[in-house]
């Protein structure tokens, strides 16, 4: 979001010299064939890649793992133990490991598509994909809560914090409902989408801006600015490496926390 604001702030300065700043239109890629767009191909490709790699890594299930199996176990074990078990607890976590592991891998690979040469487009910068995943996580944690506590029990569990009694509930309960049921999926989706969108926009801005300054509006000062813009491009790319991982991790972590809250016993 901050990066988006920064881009917006930079745009007027550049636009004075005939430079067309990148905007949302740059994300609206033309279809490849018929109604099929690049993100559609990418999201299917990501699923195929993830399944192929994880299946190849897990197929042998050897007691002494090879390199690929070791790497697969490292990733799987990280989500399984570091996220699912630690947050949901040893009693229920195994049921949610497949979902959380798939979620983490899916978001991670689609994010890193943004930096992989020739692909270079983060799938989740199209908000629809982020909404879809957030909706699934919303269905999961609410479904689990209703399965565990019953519908009314779950509503009570979610909307009434432990130890709160009396008229103040009139204020607290709607707020809790709003926060836990309505706002959560929106923030989950927007956080992912906005980070990917803004990061990619920033990369486009530095790449195209540097190119414009160096080749179309050449002057000694502009050349320095252009080189700086390209240096920034590399800096932001490095930052994006971190952000892309973090967004995958946070999405998975928050889903695990929502599930954990839903399956928790009465306080």
């Amino acid at each position, binding site marked *: 979001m901050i990066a988006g604001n920064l881009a917006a702030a930079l745009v007027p300065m550049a636009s004075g010299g005939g430079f067309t700043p990148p*905007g*949302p*239109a740059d*994300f*609206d890629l033309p279809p490849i064939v018929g*109604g099929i767009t690049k*993100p*559609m191909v990418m*999201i*299917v490709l*990501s*699923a195929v890649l*993830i*399944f192929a790699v*994880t*299946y190849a890594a*897990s*197929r*042998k*299930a*050897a*007691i002494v*793992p090879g390199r690929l*199996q070791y790497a*697969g*176990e490292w990733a*799987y*074990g990280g989500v*399984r133990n570091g996220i699912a078990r630690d947050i949901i607890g040893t009693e229920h976590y195994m049921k949610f*490991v*497949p*979902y959380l*592991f*798939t*979620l983490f*891998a*899916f978001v991670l690979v689609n994010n890193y598509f943004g930096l992989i040469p020739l692909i270079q487009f983060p*799938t989740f*910068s*199209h*908000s*629809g*994909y*982020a*909404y*879809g*995943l957030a*909706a*699934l996580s919303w269905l999961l944690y609410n479904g689990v809560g209703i399965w565990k506590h019953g519908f009314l029990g779950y509503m009570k569990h979610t909307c009434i914090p432990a130890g709160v009694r009396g008229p103040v509930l009139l204020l607290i309960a709607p707020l809790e409902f709003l926060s836990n049921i309505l706002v959560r999926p929106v923030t989950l989706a*927007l956080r992912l*989408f906005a980070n990917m*969108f803004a990061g990619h926009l920033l990369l486009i801005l530095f790449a195209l801006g540097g190119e414009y300054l160096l080749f179309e509006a050449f002057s000694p000062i502009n050349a320095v600015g252009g080189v700086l813009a390209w240096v920034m491009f590399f800096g932001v790319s490095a930052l994006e490496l971190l952000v892309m991982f973090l967004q995958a991790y946070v999405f998975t972590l928050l889903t695990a926390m929502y599930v954990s809250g839903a399956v928790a016993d009465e306080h």
Partner: protein
Amino acid sequence: MRESIQAAGELNPLIPHVSEIILGAAVFLVLLLAIRKFVVPNFEKAFAERTAAIEGGLSAAETKQAEADAKLAELEKQLADARHEAARIREEAREQGAVIVSEMREQAQAEASRIVEHGKSQIEAERQQAVNSLRVEVGTLATTLAGRIVGESLDDDGRQGRVVERFLADLEAGTPGVN
């Protein structure tokens, strides 16, 4: 929806394409099912087998250790028994040796005293024999002497008397060196 946004003049990235929501969720669900069916069980199998292998190895090592300890204790016990046995045998041998030595000493003593006794009685018997033969000889000698004295010089009273007296004195003393 897309046309309406474009009609508004600017794309709003927050407004999604419905097709992308559906496609994203569907692809994710397919991947989830595939991973749940084909990948997770394999990883879990590897984890479980590894845990079992480690635990099995540990318990096997414990068993081996216990066996080794038992064996060691047994051997130590055997060693102590053997030492004890050896000491007992040595003690017994010493006792037996002492008994044998004292027996031998007694036997030797008895033998020695027997030999001494035998020698003494032999000497006594020989002496007796000598005394007997001496008596016989003294009688003969006395007779012979008396004959000579009588035949040779009866006139010399004094000499005759001295000879007889000395002879008799010698005889009575029993000295074998007389003859």
